[in-house]
Every structure is written in C-alpha cells, then in structure tokens.
C-alpha cells in the first residue's frame, strides 16, 4: 500500500512535523475542541477551512481530503437523517411521513435539516482534526511521554500499534494465498471467517516474536525513562502559540456573543462584522505557523 493512501504518521518536511509530537497533537486537539465549543456555523466553517489548509500545509492534505471525501457523505447523511427523524422542535414542515411506531408521528422540518448539517460540519472538523493528529504527531514520541506516566499501559499500546499494521498485512497475504488455491479458496462469510481464524492463529506467533524482541530490548525492566530536555524549537513555539490563540478566539466569540445561531423553532442566524473578523482571524492564527518553513527538514 502506498504512503499516500494511508492515514498514518510518516516523517515529512513540514512545520507541523518539525514541532514536537506533544505540541503537534495539542494543536490538532485544540482545533477539535474549538469545534466542540462553538455552535456557530461561520466559526465551524472557518475551523474546517483551517483543518484542511493545515493538512495541506503539513503535507498530508491528500490523505486527509481523501478521508474527508470518504467520510463526509456518510457523516452528513447519517447526522441529518437521525436529526430529522428524532427532532420535534422545527416548525417548517416539508414532509409528513405519518406514524412510525416507536418514533411516533414523523414530520420532516427544514430546521432539523439545517441543524443536522451544522452537527455534521462539527463532526467533520473533529474527525479531520483527529486524523491530522494521527498523520502529524509522532506516535513514538507520544508513547514515550505516556510511558513516564504508565509504563505497562504504554507497552500494551506499543504492541497494539505495532501489531495492527502487521496483522493487516498478514490478512492481505492470507487472502492472496487463498486466491491461489485451485478452487479460489473459501468465499463469502465462510471464507472471511477462515481467513480471520488463520490471521488470529498467526497473530499469536507474531505477538510472541514481537514480545521476545521487546523483552530483549529491556522493556520488562521498565526503568524510568529520562526524557530529553530538548529546547523548544521555533515550530514548537509557533504551534503552541497558535493553539492558545485559536482557543481564546473561539471562547471569546462564544462568550461575547459575536454571532448568534438558533435552529429552533425557526432558523435564525446573525452574522455580524465582528463574527466575520473573528472567523478570519481564527483561520489566520491557525495557519500562521505554516508560513515559517525554516528548519523543517530532518
């Protein structure tokens, strides 16, 4: 499988990759948190733009936008559908579907559709921000940081993160070997079960080998790891500052009521100049660290 098709961390020459893993992860998490804080569609839109642009700035735009394309439609459809079916608060009915048993009388309203779309937008920002963390924060560094808190849990996490791709590759190999059988191998659900069983059996052997290697590398001794006190790089400072600024702008916009959005009972939304400035500022501060391309090559 090519690198471009995988949602996984690969070292790249980008400002976000040049920042330490904890700060890169915090940056992605702040974008997700901001989406959870603000209900305003304008700010959510600004956050979506920020996440996508940040992904391209970090060199993982293709992976993230592919994931967005793949995930967007199901997320939007599902969220809108569920909201439309369960919401009882909208007034502008555009379809009456009658009595649906447990759901009772189902009336589809414009307000429920709009709120469903805003919810879907929020979910998209959260999902893509998490994917940005996966692609840009070095998991080894994160695990190392986690080990200082809980060595045993970190061991489990290390084994799991290592074994998941290995087992995925095993399953692909097994499926390929089945295609080499003269009868084409067991097909359908039975075939998949057989491959799953064989993969699990192989996983035990694999786990033993990986665990043996870990043991020989001294994981069992679990002596406290002494972290390196590396000085903060320009990218560490930039992304940490950016994260704080994004959070402050979002909180301020929400608390100060720069804009208002209320889906029920009728959709009402006010877009003030202050809100537009806040949205533009949010995009600018989120993306500013990507302008600094110095020292990004490792």
């Amino acid at each position, binding site marked *: 499988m090519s690198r471009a098709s995988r949602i*996984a961390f690969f*070292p790249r020459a980008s400002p976000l990759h040049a920042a330490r893993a904890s700060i890169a992860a915090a940056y992605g998490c702040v974008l997700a948190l901001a989406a959870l804080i603000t209900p305003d569609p304008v700010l959510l839109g600004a956050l979506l733009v920020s996440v996508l642009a940040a992904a391209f700035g970090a060199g993982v735009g293709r992976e993230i936008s592919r994931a967005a394309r793949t995930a967007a439609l199901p997320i939007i459809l599902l969220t809108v559908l569920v909201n439309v079916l369960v919401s009882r608060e909208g007034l502008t009915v555009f379809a009456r579907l009658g009595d649906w048993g447990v759901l009772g009388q189902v009336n589809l309203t414009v307000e429920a559709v709009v709120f469903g779309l805003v919810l879907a937008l929020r979910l998209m920002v959260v999902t893509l921000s998490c994917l940005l963390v996966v692609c840009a924060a070095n*998991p080894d560094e994160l695990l*190392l940081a986690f080990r200082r808190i809980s060595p045993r849990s970190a061991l489990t996490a290390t084994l799991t993160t290592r074994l998941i791709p*290995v087992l995925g590759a095993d399953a692909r190999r097994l499926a390929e070997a089945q295609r*080499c059988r003269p009868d084409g191998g067991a097909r359908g659900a039975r075939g998949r079960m057989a491959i799953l069983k064989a993969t699990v059996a192989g996983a035990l052997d694999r786990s033993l080998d990986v665990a043996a290697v870990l*043991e020989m590398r001294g994981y*069992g001794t679990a002596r406290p790891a*002494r972290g390196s006190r590396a000085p903060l790089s320009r990218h560490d400072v930039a992304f940490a500052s950016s994260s704080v600024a994004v959070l402050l702008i979002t909180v301020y916009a929400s608390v100060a009521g720069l804009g208002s959005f209320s889906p029920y009972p009728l959709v009402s939304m006010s877009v003030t100049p202050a809100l537009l400035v806040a949205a533009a500022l949010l995009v600018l501060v989120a993306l500013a660290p990507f302008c600094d391309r110095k020292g990004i090559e490792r």
Partner: protein
Amino acid sequence: MSVLRFDHVSYAYPAVQRDAISDVSLAIEPGEFCVVAGLSGSGKSTLLRAAAGLVPHFHGGRFAGTVTVGGLDTREHGPAEAGEVAGTVLQDPETQVIMTTVRAELSLALENRGQAGASVARAVEETSLSLGIAHLLDRATAELSGGELQRVALASALVCRPSLVLLDEPTSQLDPVAGDELIWQLRRLNQESDTAVLLIEHRLERCLAAADRVIALSEGRVVCDRDPRGFLEWAAESAPGLATPGARMFARAGLRPPPTGVKQARAALRGAGLLHETRDPAENPPVVADTRSRPRPLAAMRRRSRVQQPALALKGVWHEITRGPTVLRSVDLSIQAGERVVLMGRNGAGKSTLLRHAAGLLQPTRGSVQSSGRVALLLQNPGDYFLHERADQEVSEDALRMVGLAGLGARNPRDLSGGQRQRLALAIVLGGSEPASVLALDEPTRGMDTASKRRLARWLRARAGEGAAVVLATHDAEFAAEFADRAVLLADGRVIADGPIEQVLAGGRYFATETARILDGARGVLRPEQGADLLLARSAGEQYAAPQGVRS
C-alpha cells in the same frame, strides 16, 4: 572471562519429550567470530535463544545446566539483563522492528534502560554512522526494504554496545548483495570493536571466510567445534550436506585443504597452476542481455518453441502503481512447457510481482499475460495457505502422498517442519481437477538447509519432466544452478539478462555460484561437480566438455 559460556546445557520445549539441545558445553571468547552450522532442527536457534536468555525465561520448558552471558547466569537474569551484554538479531526483520521511525527504534533499548537523553542521542548517532544507516534515521520503519530493516534490527542490537552479538539467519530474507553487506558489516564490527559474534547461517559459503570458528550441531549436540578449515575437513567426512560448494569442488577434484572462501580457493588453484587467469573467450561465455535477441543454444528448445504455444507468455507487461512506483517495465517473457526457469535480481526488482501477474493475482496496467492452462503459484510463506487444523483437511491423502507427506495427515500443518509445510502448500496449489501447466514459486528455499533444497530441486525437476513449466524467484544462486536450465535476471522491473543458466550465472559477481566465482565462470560451470571435472581435465591437460547450453 568468556563472553558466553554453556556448561552441560540441555533444554526441551514445553510439552516436548525430546531435548532441543542436549548436554551442550562451549565458550565464546571476546572478539571471536563464530558461525553455528547444522541442518534444520539441529538446535541452532534454541542455542541462540538460550544465549539470549529467552530460554527458559520466555519459552518455559525443561532446562538443565548453566548459561552465563558476560558473567550473568541466565537462570537468575532474564533476557532484558542479558540484552545489555548480548544484542540479538532474529530471522524475520518485520517482527523485530517495533517503533514507527528508525531513530525511535534505535533509542528504545537505551531509553528502556533509563539512559539520559544526551547519551541516547549520542549512541544512536554513532551506531547509525558505524552501520551506514544515518540517512535512515528519520525514515518511517514501515517504508524500509527488507535489507534496510535488517540493518536497523542489527543497529538496535548494537546500540547498547554489547560485547556479544547473536544472529539467527539474518540474511535468509535478503538478496545476495544485502546479505553480503550484512556479513561484512559484522566482520568490520568484530574487527574494529572486538565484539564477539555468534552467527547462525545456512549459506556457509557466505560467511566462512569471515569466521574464526565454526560450531556444528546435530540433533541438539555439538558435533564439531573447529576453525573454518577444520570444520570443512570434518564436514567432507561426516556431514557432506554442510560442506560449502568450494569445499565440495576441491574434495571431488582431490585437492586439499578445503578453501573457506573464493579468495583462498583461487590462491590454492593459482598455486597448483589450475586457474586460467587470462580471460579466454572460449572459456568465458557471454552473458545474454536482451530477451528478444536471446540465442537458444538448446536446439530442442528452439524447435519446440516454433511449434508449441508457450506455457506462459508475458507480452510488454507493465505494472504501474497509482501514485506509486513502476514495478514492471515492458516485460516480455515466454516459457515453454517443461522449462525450468529462475527469476533472480535484487529485492524490489519485480520478481514477486511478475509471478503474481503470471498467476492472475494482478492485472497488468499495460501488456498481456497468457498461459496454456492453470498457473499454480506458491507464495513466500507456505503457512498462509493453511486454514485447517489437520493436514488431511487441507488436501486429500492422495495429494499428500504425491508430495511425500503420506502418514502426516493427522498433523497440524503449523507443527510440520519448514520443508514439510512447503510441500503441503505445494499440494494445495497443485490440487484441483485441472492440472497446472505452470508451477510458479516465490522464494521457496528461504531458511531451508542444503538437504531440503536438494530434495525440493529434485521434486521440481520431476514436475518439469512431466511437462509442467516451472518458474521460481530466488536469491539462492546455488539452488538456481541445481534446479534450472534458464535464468532471467531482473533489475528495476526490466529483464536485463535472459539465457541458459550457465551463461547468466557464470558471468556474474553477485548473481553467481561460488564455483563460478572461483573459476571466473570458465566454461559456464556452476556446480561443484562440474567445477571438479573442469579442474581434473585441466590437471590432466584434457579438453573439458562444457555443460549443455554454453557456446564453445
């Protein structure tokens, strides 16, 4: 003080009666380079695992005797503590690399041992520089080739500056170039830092020249512990299956002492006046470099190709991965029924992809693949074919008999030996109502000892004799010479040489047998028996009849 010491060590795996190693006593001194030889199942890997402290701590079982590693008794100190004295590299590089980046992988062992950040950084830097992998430090481990992964595994074992390195067939999954590089890196490490090396290896011709000492095991016991030359003399008498091709050639030609490598062999032949160093065009056949203009020295083959449809034909096959590399570039290849063909080339040259196209597992992005019947493909891991818990649930008793596994139907396929698993997988792919017209195998000899390879070569020749075209990808030039009548050399997805095996392998440096390298490929001899005949003819002043397929 010995860096590793075994005192009357016996060990049996859990729920197994027979000892895997039995009453083993030996000592490895600082700075020694020891090779461990033996057939499959002789206890080599168990010996290594005992030295690493994995036996008995990790595997359990019945253990007697004492193993001390750098003065640490492994009964009291586990693999983690033994790991500070002895770095270990196992066979499969995939399962030895744990972290996401090479830098993190190299740091892991040191961080586990609580070393300070600066000290970790320095050790990682120095180890990567000494092994020539500094450029890989920030690469993702998932993107590394097999050879690179194995070098990273070696670096991870060396980063704690161990006084002993234990290696279990580290070259078995590498191409000849990467395998040789790894062995010479070990030799350099051994000479420059006095690190003792204990290396398990099946292809002894690859490492004996670098070794100080060879320990041979048979049925869990040490049966020989001598210097390489002494070992080869012992092997000639007691274990011919362990003798290197060069030693076999010398023994057959009545020359003494056996050579431990190409340089020593050539010096001996030069001294005896048996090495013709002027390159005589009559003695050195040209390597054919173009498929389409390939001369066909075998007249029968040429006649047959005019009248018969090929068993397998690839015409201008390209394999281009979307947003990825081009793996095959306009490959033309035609294989007749009954032909025995080897595909050779570096890792990533396109051999496995070509076989997958032949079997229809992949579709060419351009070009076409045609076959006269079913193509049975055996992939690299025979275990991937097994879905059941009994061999006779995988195939019929008749099929088991066909591959020499009669009576083993009740065994779990995963409990069979490497060679037996291979044959069971062959029985699976060869089964079905339609007989296979092409049998394709991808790296079938990985981790096999010489005896098993010979059995496999015989079996495959018999299938070709029955009319099947047999094509296999291998890095093993000795096996290729034993089995094939034609070799196709691939590089960067292109066919760069295609011709009778005597022409392609005799003229090479890496893709050549030891016999061919000793004799400069003279007269296209590849196998020790042919080499000995040539030497006997030279010493008698007679004309040597070149093997079939070589133009005089």
